[in-house]
């Protein structure tokens, strides 16, 4: 969990172009400053590339918190 949180933090900082982003399991992805639907898809592309998992579009759009995202990655690995 900690290692994934570290990897996800780096991904979020890169995609949002904001090194100040910190994440917790409760962080709501859509409430991060600068979020939009295109950023969301870009995030998922980075997650798929980083963790070697695949999502369909329904799964991508359903993920709301960082905790849900980590759980879904672990469920797919």
């Amino acid at each position: 969990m900690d290692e994934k949180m570290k990897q996800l933090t780096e991904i979020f900082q890169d995609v949002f172009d904001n090194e100040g982003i910190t994440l917790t399991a409760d962080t709501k992805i859509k409430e991060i400053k600068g979020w939009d639907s295109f950023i969301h898809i870009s995030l998922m592309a980075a997650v798929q590339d980083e963790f070697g998992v695949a999502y369909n579009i329904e799964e991508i759009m359903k993920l709301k918190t960082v905790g849900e995202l980590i759980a879904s990655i672990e469920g797919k690995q």
Partner: protein
Amino acid sequence: MINMKKIHHIGFLAKNLEKTAKDFESMGYERNGGGFDPIQKAEILFMNMDGVNVELVVPSEDSEVYPLLKKYRNAPYHICYEVENLEQAIEEFVKQGYALFRPAVKAVAISETARVAFLMGRNVGMVELVEL
């Protein structure tokens, strides 16, 4: 290496379809069909010059790429590649970590039989695949 036949077109965001089309025409491009594409949720117009197709795209507010229009206004934003077998190509891209965000559907703006899919790559951005 992923097997693709050739580049089919370059997708180009346009804030105002008519104004952008006229500027492309002044560079020698000719209009080559289009219309509203319910899949991309966008007004489309193909422009052609010397065998190169540029797809002008004016996304609706509910399109995933609408935020890009707000950010970049008029700019290229995806490359579309022609493939022999759409499902096989999608599978190869997904294996390499691309996110499939618009699964295979008919592309009425291209032809009656064409099917397209859209993927997002971590380092290359948006990729469209078309099977004619």
